[in-house]
């Protein structure tokens, strides 16, 4: 455990070093990145070695402010999440070396690195915290530091807006968290996590829901996802990658940890998580499909993946309450593995988006195109990430979903509610997979393939080597996990080692299946190579012509005739119309010689609209009406005092 604190100290030292070296831009970056990476490396080795050796839980605590203890505890679940926390940030930092290249923003970059280090350290503390106060402390530091990371580019109004919404969700969520903890404290009288299970059954559900509101908003559960989808596009790409890939997993961790600690008998919790997961997954991907802003799309896709993870967790929880060990084990393991996988390919995709925004000056899909030729490495790695995130073999996304499917299928039993939930989970997973495929074919097909739609896109060049190298590493990692999933599945299983319900589950039979999966993917790749060879043979010594795309008889095609993201998604979005309101503005044609007409569609987030319409506007209106109170007339001010006296005297 001390090793971990040492690594955190090193990470923080890297962050502080950035503040002191902000005048020497390159030196600052080198020192910070090297130090922080070293710290993360130590942490990674520590967590991996303990995780795989099934080491017993470790605890450590200090007294704080006389009445609290700062208690930390490491078990297999923490270790698993620590692996993610320590594995991804170094890559993001390496990526940032060239991505954060603006020397005029040296101070700001230094501050960014500082808070980056704080964020990593606080996330490590979140997953190791063992009592209320420690957890709340780490959680709040995490929220605050990530806020500063989000508003890096604060000159842009939209980014400030995003930062604001992020801030509100963070603090609002924290308040719900405080309430949940306080409710626990009311019943246990203790701050320690281990006493949670002793509270009355009927309170547990309430506690969980309160906590879920907090953790869900951090993770990005629909309809609490607004902060997440706002912050994703606003933050610099490597930050967005960390936030989406790692920090939102803290929400998942906390939901799961809360569930374990509460040890509630009610099946409602599992059902709630599952249903939330289904809604989040499906709506997340539909919105991803509907959005043309690449980073926003990726943020929505994170929402979708959180949905998948929650479906896994939900399956696991339902399995636990139904005493179905297979369902429980594989639901949870699938969720864990997907946490790991998603952190890899989502980082990859965000970094790709960052490279695109840097090189092509825009991330709007409808203005991109043809980048595969201009940015070959970014394009190829992005393609790999897209296949992975669509859950398609032979990349890593499939493996996590496979485990969840496996758990869900084994949940199909005689009990009605779990049966229906399992069916819904399976179908929604399938639908999510299909939609994700549609979504990412849109991104790759329209942004990277075809012809550039604007000059900016046409003039894009490949991103710097530190950026592309990181992306290559991540892409290869995704592929390796997909082809040789066994060690990584073992990692997820090891993460479940300390979960009481699934402890001691015999995984040998399943490992056989995993080997088969691996083998089948091998066969597939072999077949693919064979066919490629066959194709090569067929084309040997043949004339390969090239010409323009056939325009179906149209002789003067322009790049603007290409299908756009909006048109690609239109029909699919239309299918989900009630949940995906689309604002269409059409100027219409009038007069005999019509002027310029415009047609514009914009997809709005249903949650945002509802909040705006039913919460924020009435609230603001109400508050505005009450502003009359402070009208400036002293006579009435005195009347308030008199009134207060009279009212209080009535209680006498």
């Amino acid at each position, binding site marked *: 455990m001390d090793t971990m604190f040492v690594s955190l100290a090193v990470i923080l030292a890297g962050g502080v070093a950035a503040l002191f070296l902000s005048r020497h831009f390159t030196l600052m970056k080198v020192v910070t990145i090297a130090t922080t990476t070293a710290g993360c490396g130590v942490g990674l080795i520590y967590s991996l070695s303990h995780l795989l050796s099934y080491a017993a839980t470790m605890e450590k605590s200090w007294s704080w402010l006389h009445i609290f203890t700062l208690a930390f505890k490491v078990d297999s679940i923490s270790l698993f999440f620590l692996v993610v926390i320590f594995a991804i940030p170094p890559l993001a930092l390496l990526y940032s070396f060239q991505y954060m290249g603006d020397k005029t923003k040296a101070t700001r970059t230094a501050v960014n690195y500082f808070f980056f280090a704080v964020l990593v350290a606080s996330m490590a503390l979140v997953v190791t915290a063992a009592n209320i106060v420690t957890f709340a402390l780490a959680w709040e*530091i995490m929220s605050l530091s990530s806020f500063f990371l989000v508003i890096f580019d604060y*000159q842009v109004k939209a980014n400030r807006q995003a930062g604001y919404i992020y801030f509100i969700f963070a603090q609002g969520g924290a*308040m719900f968290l405080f309430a949940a903890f306080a409710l626990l*404290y009311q019943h246990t009288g203790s701050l320690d996590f281990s006493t949670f299970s002793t509270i009355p059954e009927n309170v547990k559900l309430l506690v969980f829901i309160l906590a879920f509101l907090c953790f869900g908003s951090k993770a990005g559960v629909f309809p609490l996802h607004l902060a997440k989808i706002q912050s994703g596009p606003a933050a610099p790409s490597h930050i967005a990658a960390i936030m989406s890939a790692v920090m939102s997993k803290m929400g998942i961790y906390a939901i799961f940890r809360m569930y374990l600690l509460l040890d509630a008998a009610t099946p409602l919790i599992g059902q709630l998580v599952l249903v939330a997961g289904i809604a989040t997954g499906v709506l997340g991907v539909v919105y991803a499909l509907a959005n043309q802003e690449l980073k926003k799309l990726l943020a929505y896709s994170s929402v979708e993946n959180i949905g998948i993870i929650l479906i896994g967790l939900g399956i696991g929880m339902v399995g636990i309450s139904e005493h179905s060990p297979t369902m429980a084990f594989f639901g949870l393991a699938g969720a864990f593995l997907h946490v790991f996988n998603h952190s890899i390919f989502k980082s990859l995709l965000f970094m790709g988006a960052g490279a695109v925004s840097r090189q092509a000056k825009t991330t709007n899909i409808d203005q991109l195109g043809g980048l595969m030729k201009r940015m070959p490495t970014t394009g190829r790695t992005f393609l790999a990430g897209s296949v992975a995130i669509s859950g398609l073999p032979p990349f890593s996304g499939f493996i996590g979903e496979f485990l969840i499917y496996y758990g869900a299928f084994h949940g199909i039993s005689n009990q009605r509610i779990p049966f229906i939930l399992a069916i819904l989970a399976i179908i929604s997973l399938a639908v999510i997979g299909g939609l994700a495929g549609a979504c990412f074919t849109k991104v790759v097909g329209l942004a990277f393939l075809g012809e550039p739609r604007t000059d900016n896109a046409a003039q894009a060049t490949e991103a710097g080597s530190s950026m592309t190298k990181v992306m290559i590493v991540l892409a290869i990692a995704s592929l390796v996990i997909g082809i040789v999933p066994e060690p990584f599945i073992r990692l997820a299983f090891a993460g479940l080692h300390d979960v009481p319900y699934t402890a001691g589950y015999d995984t040998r039979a399943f490992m056989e299946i995993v080997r088969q999966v691996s083998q089948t993917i091998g066969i597939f790749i072999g077949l693919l190579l064979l066919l490629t060879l066959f194709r090569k043979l067929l084309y040997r010594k043949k004339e390969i012509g090239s010409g323009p795309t056939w325009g179906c008889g149209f002789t003067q095609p322009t790049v603007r005739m290409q299908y756009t993201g909006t048109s690609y998604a239109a029909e699919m979005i239309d299918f989900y119309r009630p949940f995906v309101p689309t604002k269409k503005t059409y100027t219409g044609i009038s007069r005999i010689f019509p002027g310029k007409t415009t047609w514009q569609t914009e997809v709005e987030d249903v949650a945002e609209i509802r909040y705006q319409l039913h919460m924020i506007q009435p609230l603001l209106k109400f508050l505005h009406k009450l502003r009359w109170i402070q009208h400036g007339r002293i006579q009435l001010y005195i009347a308030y005092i008199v009134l207060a006296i009279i009212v209080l005297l009535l209680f*006498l």
Partner: protein
Amino acid sequence: MLEFTCLIPLFTGIIAMFLPVKFGRGILVVTAILHLQITVLAWMGKITPGLPQYFSASPEGLLVLLVASFIFLFISIYAVSYMSETEITSEPIYIGCTLFFLSSMSMVALADHLVVLWIAIEATTLMSAPLIFLHRSKSALEATWKYVLICSVGIALALLGCFFIVLSMDIGNVEVPITFSALGAVATQLDPIWLKAGFIFLVIGYGTKMGLAPMHTWLPDAHSEAPSPASALLSGALLNCAFLGVYRSHRLMYQAGLGDFSSNILIGLGLLSMLIAAIFIFNQTGYKRMLAYSSVENMGIIAFGVGIGGLATYGAMLHLIHHSLIKSSLFLSSGNILLGYGSKLISKTGNMARLFPKTFIAFFAGFAGISGFPPFGIFVSELLIIMGAFQQGRIISVSIFILALILIFAGASRLVMKMSFGAWNNEILIDEKMARVLPSYALLLTSIILCVWLPDSLYQTILSAIATIGGTVHG
């Protein structure tokens, strides 16, 4: 002689009134240091009150005294630099009144006698009114007028409350000195009805001074119109002193077995203050007014915490300390902003992060602190208050509490974001100086330090202060 804490500033204040400006500034700082030294001596128990029938060194009094003395030191350092930038026509008056103000506040902190406390609080009004009126503008005049009139009415009512408590002694046939400590010992013999009536008048009276809604109406005007060092003193020290009056009345009620009655009133007023603050922080136009409403909110939080009792009382006391530190720091920063941008309107500020980086750090850190983010202490105190409220089973109250906190945060953060990061293209009038930034940093740093390491004596003092109203940190 603990009374030196009142006498020294009084004496130096008179001197400063008649000396040239140059010496006055020195006297201000020297007095602040002296005062802090005496206060620390008092903390160590080295000196005791000379007039025990009127004054006593109660733990809560010492707490408030220390906080006031501590922030006074930094505010006076700031004030020296601030005054050199602004042209104040009557600087000797300002320095003199500031010192008198400190004197009267020290008196409040030490007063044990019901009427002496009342007189001291009255005196704070007298001494602080010239501070608010310092700029002699129309709006300053209006603010002063409202401050004086409303506070006078409130204080007059508090006097009535004192009479009622004396009456409750008469009816209960109690023959003790009218000090809080003496009354506390015989509290159960006092007539409950008159005691309750007395409490109501006291809480309304002192609550007016403390800024509890609906008596808070003077507060935003006065805080926004006063020069920033004075605002910082008003918010950081004066409100605490007024709170002391409320707190001691509540303790008397608690000792008389009427704790539920006074608790409910405090909770009600506290929540009302928070909600009112929430209303006005949304779409607020002036940043000093925003800070003033935030003071209303935080006084509400303290009243709420004290009303809840138990663990929450400890939280409220911590909140008092940290609020004073952070809020005075914020007001000092706001002084820099006012100097730099030349306007109190939020719409006429912006992009502090770039143009005003040092102040920005202090201002934004202060905002994060006041909103309850670690590593500032309000994180702990709010958590404790919420936990305490749940522990007492006050679910509905705490729901309102949390709702108000969220609303206030949503309102304030929008404004602070606008000021910190919003677009702004004009010139900065007066640049920031280290002398005007360091005091803010020092205050914030103190809050951080106290959140990491709470000295044992401070902890024990808080414990003994809250023990008398059933406050505890265990169970």
